[in-house]
């Protein structure tokens, strides 16, 4: 490792380290503007100039030494940029000389020549690198008269979310580079040059990116500010509370900035293992639901047909009385639906109420979600190993992403997988029935025929076995039934699987080789694969088989990640919100009722927490054998209790409505899609009389157990974290996940790609460590926690059911990041981002129907007809059309249905 001496402090650093990073390791901060640890260095701002020298070598190539034996240093005649200069062995750097101080002073003076110095009215003031570095290194006075300043526009909207102040821009290009290198939406650029240079966006809509908010954080001046937060508070008046995002399942860490009992802004909280320093725009801007004027503020009871305000005691007593009446008659006549937005504490108590007090196993969370048990067992057995870091998968790791569209569903995971592939050289195999944005980074992009998922997986398995690439050692030790499996597999040659899945046989073999030969490999499977699994059990067995015969389970960067839709979907599985699974994903003997059954009149009492089945009941539609199965609207049971933030469609039908607190008002834990359990804290005072979900459940529990032989004290909780402790003590998967353990500070390395690595492979070099951060805790899968566990290969015939019929198209259903959901629809600022309903169609098919891009078309299936505009492109293969669910008029689309498309 090269040794560098900076201001007389020596340090050994990895090959390829930049001076600015080496300096940090000896505690020397070199000031920068354009340099950003996550971006490629460009040396544009010149703030980091330092004196650099290297040992002088004589003609013989030997280092020259002075009388004392110390190397003679050849100092470079001019100052060098510390952000672009890579250290070499014996290098000397001086950052504390008069020459360096002069240079810094000159750069600051230069940057400020036309800067408006309007810090008192600038959002960045108080957390502005330009302000800070001017105080630290600037001249204090300018030699340029104020009148000579150039003036530029001060309010240039870059899209709906970001405001540009052209006067404040110092042309560092951090925003442009973020959009190009990290977000990979190159929609910001420089225009013109010199003094006239400005940041522009020419995309339609302007600044068309799901990550635009990050440019506010990376901007080192006040040029880019949030249109949402703009001028609403000074940053030092905002109190930051650590929280976890309440939207998708990535579980990004964030700070809720509170002032005056409202959320002023949300900014990312650094966690290298989850979201690095990024947030998507949904996570950053969609928070207004928490402080919406539509929030429920007090309990409501239906009297004479109307919902009327009541006290908590009246409401809770009524709920307890009615539930008890119905339960005493038949416990199985009581059902519970809980949304996967609720915290682990809420879910745990809710299931405890049902399983221990009411005596019913009628629990489900899959409202507006497919009817299949998508991955409860797979994840318990083969979930990705602890320590898996999706943003730093190395060149010896292969990730198969199956049937997922993380760009829309888990945006930060898309960002991180792209980083793994582009920066660290990980191999991505992206397989789906259509092309997604992620396919761009794939070494191998596979488009199979929808319905051919299992044949695709089996084809990979067969190719691995044909080429003897299976992990024999692992199979011998841990896998049962391999020979029988092989026998069953015999008729399925790679060619046959290729035909069934619509994938080229060589593509199958290449994918199989990459997956099997890779030292580390994992599978991420998303919504489209889960929907396929619902019809085709061979998808689940295919995933398991692929992992088992290659031995890619039970270690970091190996195993399975299920890309679920919501922030606590994993928690809902963990606490057994499935008719056939109990607490801790254990299979149960006596199956309860499913969400679909509970909402069509099979229970007398229904307790609904944090979900809206009446709104989405239509989407309890699945497909079986290509025919869609639908269910008519929500049937109100005899007694309906709804506990939510808003008067939802279901709440409007309820007998009792209980106002719950949003994630910003209470604390608890969420489990993200990697099974990482993370703590979040309260930031706001409760809205009205709203109570946390767990408190409401506990109060009902107390009332139900009073007078019974069940002990009362088990329902007394002072705060949510007492429940967290109870979970840690009583749920095996969460064993030891106490608050202290979850909040434990760890050191996380911040990897960065190395340059000039002699082996030619991208290396990960640490840029120091991130200290005093809790990264949450993942629970261990069986493959990881039990080294002696044996796994059985299960043979399931693959199917290929969505064959193409002439004049009909297979409907693929996607999700749009911004849609008409309960939370997003209550945030005005993102409404322009919600797309109008559309159908994506292949250009070849469009030509046959005679439609052009943007044309209105009529999509019909079953008894439904929807008019939408057509997007003609090459993202969907011929014979397939794609629509996004839950936009205006497109709720409850049945995946895989056959649809007709006609020109309007």
């Amino acid at each position: 490792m090269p040794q560098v001496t900076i201001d007389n402090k020596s340090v050994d650093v990895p090959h390829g380290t930049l001076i600015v990073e080496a300096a940090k390791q000896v505690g020397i901060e070199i000031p920068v503007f354009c340099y950003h640890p996550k971006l490629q260095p460009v040396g544009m701002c010149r703030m980091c100039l330092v004196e650099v020298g290297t040992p002088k070598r004589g003609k013989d190539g030997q280092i020259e030494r002075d009388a004392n034996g110390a190397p003679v240093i050849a100092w470079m005649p001019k100052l060098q940029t510390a952000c672009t200069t890579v250290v070499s062995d014996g290098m000397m750097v001086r950052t504390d000389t008069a020459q360096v101080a002069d240079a810094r002073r000159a750069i600051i003076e230069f940057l400020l020549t036309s800067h408006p110095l309007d810090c008192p009215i600038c959002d960045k003031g108080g957390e502005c690198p330009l302000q800070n570095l001017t105080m630290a290194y600037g001249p204090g006075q300018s030699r340029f008269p104020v009148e000579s300043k150039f003036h530029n526009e001060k309010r240039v909207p870059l899209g709906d979310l970001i405001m540009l102040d052209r006067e404040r821009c110092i042309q560092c290009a951090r925003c442009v580079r973020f959009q190009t290198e990290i977000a990979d939406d190159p929609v910001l650029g420089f225009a013109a040059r010199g003094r006239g240079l400005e940041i522009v966006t020419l995309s339609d809509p302007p600044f068309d990116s799901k990550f635009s908010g990050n440019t506010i954080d990376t901007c080192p001046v006040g040029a880019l500010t949030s249109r949402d937060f703009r001028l609403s508070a000074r940053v030092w008046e905002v109190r930051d509370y650590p929280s976890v995002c309440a939207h998708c399942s990535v579980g990004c860490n964030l700070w809720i900035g509170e002032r005056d009992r409202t959320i002023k802004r949300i900014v990312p909280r650094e966690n290298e293992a989850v979201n690095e320093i990024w947030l998507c725009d949904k996570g950053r801007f969609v928070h207004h639901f928490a402080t919406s004027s539509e929030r429920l503020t007090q309990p409501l009871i239906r009297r004479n047909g109307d919902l009327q305000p009541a006290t908590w005691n009246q409401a809770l007593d009524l709920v307890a009385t009615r539930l008890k009446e119905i339960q005493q008659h038949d416990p199985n006549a009581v059902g519970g639906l809980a949304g996967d937005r609720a915290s682990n504490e809420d879910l745990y108590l809710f299931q405890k109420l049902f399983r221990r007090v009411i005596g019913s196993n009628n629990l489900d969370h899959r409202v507006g979600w497919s009817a299949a048990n998508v991955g409860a067992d797979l994840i318990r057995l083969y979930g990705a190993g602890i320590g898996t870091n999706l943003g730093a998968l190395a060149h010896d790791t292969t990730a198969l992403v199956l049937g997922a569209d993380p760009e829309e569903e888990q945006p930060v995971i898309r960002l991180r997988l792209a980083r793994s592939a582009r920066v660290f050289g990980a191999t991505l195999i992206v397989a789906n029935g259509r092309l997604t944005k992620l396919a761009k980074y794939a070494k191998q992009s596979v488009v199979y025929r929808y319905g051919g998922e299992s044949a695709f997986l089996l084809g990979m398995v067969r190719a691995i076995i044909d080429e003897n690439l299976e992990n024999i050692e692992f199979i011998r030790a841990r896998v049962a039934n391999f020979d029988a499996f092989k026998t069953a597999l015999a008729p399925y040659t790679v060619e046959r699987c290729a035909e069934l899945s619509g994938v080229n046989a060589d593509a199958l073999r290449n994918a199989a080789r990459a997956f099997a030969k890779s030292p580390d490999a994992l599978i991420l499977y998303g919504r489209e694969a889960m929907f396929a699994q619902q019809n085709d059990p061979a998808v689940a067995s295919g995933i398991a088989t692929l992992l088992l015969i290659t031995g890619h389970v039970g270690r970091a960067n190996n195993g399975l990640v299920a890309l679920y839709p919501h922030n606590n979907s994993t928690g809902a599985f963990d606490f057994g919100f499935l008719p056939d699974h109990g607490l801790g994903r254990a299979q149960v003997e006596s199956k309860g009722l499913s969400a679909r059954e509970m909402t069509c009149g099979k229970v007398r009492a229904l307790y609904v927490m944090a979900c809206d089945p009446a709104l989405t009941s239509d989407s309890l539609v699945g497909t079986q054998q290509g025919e869609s199965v639908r269910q008519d609207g929500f049937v109100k049971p005899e007694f309906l209790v709804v506990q939510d933030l808003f008067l939802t469609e279901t709440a409007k039908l309820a007998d009792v409505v209980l106002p719950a607190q949003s994630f910003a008002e209470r604390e608890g834990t969420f489990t993200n899609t990697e099974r990482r359990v993370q703590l979040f804290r309260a930031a706001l005072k409760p809205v009205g009389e709203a109570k946390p979900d767990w408190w409401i459940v506990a109060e009902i529990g107390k009332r139900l157990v009073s007078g019974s032989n069940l002990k009362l004290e088990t329902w007394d909780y002072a705060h949510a974290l007492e429940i967290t402790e109870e979970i840690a003590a009583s749920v095996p998967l969460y064993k030891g996940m106490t608050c202290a353990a979850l909040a434990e500070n760890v050191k996380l390395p911040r990897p960065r790609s190395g340059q000039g690595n002699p082996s030619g492979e991208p290396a990960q070099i640490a840029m120091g460590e991130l200290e005093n951060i809790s990264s949450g805790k993942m629970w261990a899968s069986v493959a990881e926690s039990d080294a002696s566990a044996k796994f059985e290969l299960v043979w399931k015939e693959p199917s290929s059911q969505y064959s193409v019929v002439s004049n009909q198209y297979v409907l693929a259903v996607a999700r749009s990041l911004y849609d008409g959901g309960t939370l997003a629809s209550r945030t005005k600022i993102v409404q322009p981002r919600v797309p109008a309903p559309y159908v994506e169609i292949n250009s070849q098919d469009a030509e046959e129907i005679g439609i052009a891009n943007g044309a209105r078309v009529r999509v019909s299936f079953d008894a439904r007809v929807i008019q939408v505009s057509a997007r003609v492109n090459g993202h969907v293969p011929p014979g397939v059309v794609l629509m996004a669910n839950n936009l205006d008029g497109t709720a409850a689309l049945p995946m895989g249905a056959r649809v007709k498309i006609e020109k309007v």
Partner: protein
Amino acid sequence: MLSDNAKSEIQKLLTKYPNPRSAVMPALHLAQREVGWLPDEVIQEIADLVGMSKTEVNSVATFYTMYARARPGAHTLLFCADLPCALRGAEDLLARLERKLGCRAGETTADGKITLHKAECLGGCNHAPVMLIDGVEHVQDLTDEKLDEIVKRLRES
């Protein structure tokens, strides 16, 4: 907006570079030769052809001064603003020319006839001050009278 011929020429250009993005500059030149300038539609077409975003192509087209992002007049005047011409009174002449045309350097006359640009050395220092008309006609030893004549001629053409 680009002709099929221009598009196929650009397609050919793409094959000349290891990375097709590298063809953006010759593609812009080609488009400008055909269309006369680079309107938004052309920027979009080139972006699609070379696989860049519209914003990125715009950055290139605005960085280099010889790409025209604004519709030029029927005639373009490049007026040398370099040292030898300046020593022979070019600054004063340029100011007069601007008054005659009613527009500043970098702008186009209201009637859309003439666009005036400052230029660096036009290679005629021994006959300074010099000006280039429409990229082909080199006028030398400029005087106020000569400018009057030229402006009159171009306005009437």
